[in-house]
């Protein structure tokens, strides 16, 4: 499939879902920007976990080579599974942060009353 066609089709389904949310579900268009920000936060968190995982993996590989004298290839860190798992970690961490800050703000409101 032509790359431009992929972009057009994804743009089309995005537009349809935007109109569906706006007209059918009565969601506010003002929240789209906030949703984009949250998406960027999740991806940012994923990339932070990805960097952490790769740094840890390289350190472990070098330590195993040095301490145990066993050769482990650094190329194992090139596996795409690292990125997928980092995405799951980033998503969970982000949701945990959000839920915890919601609870904390609810708690402080209750204490204020």
């Amino acid at each position: 499939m032509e790359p431009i066609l992929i972009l057009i089709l994804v743009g089309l389904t995005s537009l349809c879902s935007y109109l569906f949310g706006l007209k059918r579900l009565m969601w506010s268009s003002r929240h789209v920007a906030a949703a984009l920000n949250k998406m960027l936060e999740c991806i940012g968190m994923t990339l932070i976990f990805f960097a952490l995982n790769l740094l840890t993996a390289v350190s472990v590989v070098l330590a195993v080579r040095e301490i145990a004298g066993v050769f482990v290839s650094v190329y194992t860190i090139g596996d795409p599974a690292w990125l997928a798992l980092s995405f799951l970690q980033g998503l969970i961490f982000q949701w945990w942060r959000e839920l915890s800050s919601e609870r904390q703000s609810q708690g402080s409101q209750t204490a204020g009353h």
Partner: protein
Amino acid sequence: MKGMQVCRLIGLGGVVLFLASAFTPVAHLLDIWLNAPAELAPSDAIVVLGQGVSRGVLSGDSATRASHGIALYQRGLAPLLVFSGGTSDAGPTEAAARAEFARARGVPQHAILIETKARTTREEAQREKALLQPKGVRTILLVTDSLHLLRARPLFEQAGFEVRSAPSDTFFDPDTPEERLGLMRGVLGEIVALLYYRMAGFI
């Protein structure tokens, strides 16, 4: 909140990098920019670096490198053909499998040398030095992927060889997002490996 802003910026960088890698020729341009041109000239030996073998079966890239080395030998560019590569399983080593491949394509046994113990590019340079310099080999045609030459070439120069690049792959302009992302992954991986070698003081 400042932490979340940093997170958003990193996320934005990731999205831009993804879109640029998948839907523009940026990976191809980086590949061209980083690659060393081939310097094919008569030399003392052709050194083919290891890539991978599984139960005696050469990986695609390993076979490509070996074929390129054999082609250079058959063009008369050097009297010696050196294959590198061990194994991580019970099968034959990569170097032995490549030597068999070369013999089947008409390269005489006396022209083939193998090195099977090295596990990294740095070890390959050190072991090839021990293998070849007592035989008076000074100039080599170094056969590996063009991106890998970025790291391999200075290592072999440090080992005392005069190195001529002989990249085994050819430029291709990927036209699907999957191919472009694969190429970008290779380019970024090699840049990280190069930085690691520099930081560790290997090159």
